[in-house]
């Protein structure tokens, strides 16, 4: 009770300070310098709230969960490093067995020891058909997972799968808590307990998630003692609360982030990503299925202008699923905007412009619809820009919007403005979007892309453990996509974060398409230190 009174008075004082601060300084933007609190606590604004905090239902599957640890984790350069495992896994020569030695002495935040049974439990629970985890196909390669003693776990795979270790950043749940309840709706989904650097102290749904530093964390107690993620769906409201000093950081769209550029107390982080926007070119449509049309569209789009105008410079032109800055990118596959060549390709292929400027061949008009999910401003902008560029080459693209339920039945023949991207390994994204065996399976390979050379390269890429063989395989995929594009890749989008400049440590990782809780400058919150000034 007494502590509360003191806190209340501190709050009142802080409010008074802010009032005087703002009154003294006629420019209201300057008020943001007040900050949300002490340097050992951080409050950030996020746009989407997780449905569940249970790893068994998919929370934290890409690593960086604050509450949990995976067997492995990723460093700033996205390289794998040991976490709950003592070292990187031992892989058998045939690539079918992965053995992890576990870190000794690790405890869950409730004091119970962590062991191999928890790892086995977590993976088996996710793979269970009754568990409603929509990401379980990511673990499709697993044939079995067994404990070898209390300090070692062995995964047996159905087929050699080179990037398998990348999947084991998945958080480990405690069997003694999560094991005895309904996986899909039990208490563990909202009151999780893990081995991670932070402990969830409260989750006020629709408002915020509160964490405190885990004093017994095996990696050492974090310096930032309190961490809060405030759930603020509306972009403008998030920017306003950042400006009013209630937040220390927030994810913002480019146009709002720009408003903070001049504020010295805040720093803008642009996270490089694999997050692309692409147009699917359905193989079964008479116009988009024609290789000449595909090639022409691929060079008729002005990617650099899209980056400048639609993304306000926060992004990069995309020539394939792999961004140009990545080590997996195939040099020489960049394609400049070249409207003249695009027209020539179409002319040579027999697509002749009609009276209205739209081309036709054998009585088929060079026209097709392009769908984008309604409400997604960025995709709408991309769709309109694509349609306008296509028109210049004599191809008529009609943009239409609808919910995914409306779009899905049309994906076979109509183009879609899609998005995707996964930085951890080229296999994760490319195998699903380009493999002919997965054509039209759920949302995989929406364009029904069918190219035997690509199929073979994708298999080589996932089976071989040799980095040189893998690099060559994904080079082949990118070169094939130039010859026969199944998709027109438009841009890779930077994710922007504005954060108070009072810590040493914030950086960004290369981020995936998904805006999960683990992305953002706070991916390594546990190693932030209050800035010495």
């Amino acid at each position: 009770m007494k502590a509360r009174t003191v806190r209340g008075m501190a709050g009142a004082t802080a409010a008074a300070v802010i009032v005087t601060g703002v009154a003294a300084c006629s420019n209201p933007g300057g008020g943001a310098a007040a900050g949300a609190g002490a340097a050992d606590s951080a409050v950030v604004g996020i746009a989407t709230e997780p449905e569940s905090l249970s790893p068994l239902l998919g929370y934290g599957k890409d690593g960086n969960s604050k509450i949990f640890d995976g067997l492995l984790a990723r460093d700033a350069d996205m390289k794998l490093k040991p976490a709950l495992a003592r070292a990187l896994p031992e892989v058998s020569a045939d690539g079918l067995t992965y053995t992890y030695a576990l870190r000794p002495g690790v405890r869950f935040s409730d004091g119970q020891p962590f062991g191999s049974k928890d790892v086995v439990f977590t993976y088996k629970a996710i793979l269970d058909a009754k568990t409603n985890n929509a990401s379980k196909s990511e673990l499709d390669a697993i044939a079995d997972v067994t404990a070898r003693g209390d300090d070692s776990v062995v995964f047996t795979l159905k087929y050699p799968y080179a990037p398998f270790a990348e999947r084991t950043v998945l958080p480990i749940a405690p069997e003694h808590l999560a094991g005895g309840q309904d996986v899909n709706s039990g208490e563990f989904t909202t009151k999780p307990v893990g081995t991670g650097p932070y402990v969830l102290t409260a989750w006020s749904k629709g408002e915020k998630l509160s964490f405190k530093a885990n004093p017994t964390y095996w990696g050492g107690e974090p310096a930032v003692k309190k961490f809060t993620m405030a759930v603020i769906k509306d972009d403008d409201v998030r920017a306003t609360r950042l400006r009013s000093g209630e937040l220390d950081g927030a994810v913002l769209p480019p146009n709002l982030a720009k408003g903070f550029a001049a504020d010295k107390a805040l720093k803008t982080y642009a996270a490089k990503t694999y997050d692309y926007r692409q147009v699917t070119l359905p193989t079964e449509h008479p116009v988009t299925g024609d290789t000449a049309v595909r090639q022409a569209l691929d060079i008729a789009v002005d990617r650099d202008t899209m980056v400048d105008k639609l993304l306000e410079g926060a992004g990069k032109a995309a020539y394939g699923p792999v961004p140009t800055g990545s080590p997996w990118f195939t040099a020489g596959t960049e394609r400049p905007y070249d409207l003249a060549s695009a027209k020539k390709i179409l002319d040579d292929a027999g697509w002749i412009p009609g009276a209205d400027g739209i081309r036709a061949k054998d009585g088929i008009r060079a026209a097709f619809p392009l769908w984008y999910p309604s409400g997604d401003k960025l995709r709408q902008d991309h769709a309109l820009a694509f349609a306008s560029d296509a028109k210049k080459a004599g191809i008529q693209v009609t943009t239409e919007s609808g919910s995914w339920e409306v779009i899905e039945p049309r994906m076979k023949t109509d183009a879609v403005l899609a998005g995707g991207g996964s930085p951890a390994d080229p296999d994760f994204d490319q195998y699903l979007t380009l493999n002919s065996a997965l054509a039209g399976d759920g949302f995989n390979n929406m364009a029904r892309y069918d190219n035997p050379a690509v199929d073979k390269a994708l298999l080589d890429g996932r089976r071989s453990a040799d980095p040189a063989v893998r690099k060559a395989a994904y080079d082949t995929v990118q070169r094939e996509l130039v010859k026969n594009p199944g998709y027109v890749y438009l841009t890779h989008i930077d994710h922007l974060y504005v954060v108070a400049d009072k810590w040493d440590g914030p950086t960004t990782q290369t981020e995936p398409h998904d805006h999960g809780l683990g992305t953002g400058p706070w991916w390594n919150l546990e190693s932030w230190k209050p800035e010495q000034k």
Partner: protein
Amino acid sequence: MARMAGRRTLFAGPVLLVVTFGVFAVAALSPFDPVKAYAGTAGLTASQAELDQLRVNLGVDQPLLARWWEWLTSALTGDLGTSAVMRQPVSDVIAERLGWSALLAVCAFAFAVLVGTGLGVLAARRPGGRLDRAVSGLAYTLEAAPAFWLGLLAVWFFSVRLGVLPSGGLTDAGSDVVTAGQVARHLVLPALVLGISQLPWFFLYVRQGVADALEEDPVRGARARGLGERRVLLGHGLRSGMLPMLTLIGSRVPELITGALLVETVFSWPGIAAATVQAATSVDFPLLAALTVLATAAVLAGNLLSDLLYGLADPRVGFDG
């Protein structure tokens, strides 16, 4: 009076039954797919077999009637089912949020009724006077202003410009204990915005009702007999001028619920309204049905309340039956 309340309550049963079936039917007809909503972005990389399995697990492969019957029978035994979108029991979702929404709505409603009535009486005293013109003009403007916009405006002024009130959340973002003081401070802006968005209706009705009543013969007679202005205004004018407003109280309840939705979004208020939208767009049958029952019950109770008040305020009306 008790008979009216009793009969209405009996009548509410079948109404609620029909409404819940309606929710299931409309949700089943809607183009939204619960499996896709459940899977979210993960659904974009899931295989078809996995999505089919999810459909079975969530029970949405069952026919409409079977699903409704199952929900209804278990709801009657007290089990409201599991919310797919929140990944927790529906009763937990409601228990966590309903109180905060009710607090917000009650404060806003009390503000709107009290301030609206007060200003209405003052304005009716001198129709066309300076106060009347100013407040009426403002009331028409506010009637047209969306609550969402008012909310952003309030945040900009009170939080960003003046820095005197917090702009969102239930408690300070950095705090994880819920104290009465913090909630009170955080309640001011959302309750004010929601209250102000409702206020014009009460003001305009009271103003008109009281002004009309002041024109009537009994009032003139009372004035002629030399009764004090205060007595005339409150005893005669307000009493008959209140009648239309009492009906309004019941009919404003649905508006209050939709208004609360927008206000809760702007202020990150952890109430039930935001959950309702999520339940609807994700076709989360159990949660949606439970919330619809609640909203219907609120509307029915609102109507009953205004009829009861009406009967009490004007004995000539009486209670139906």
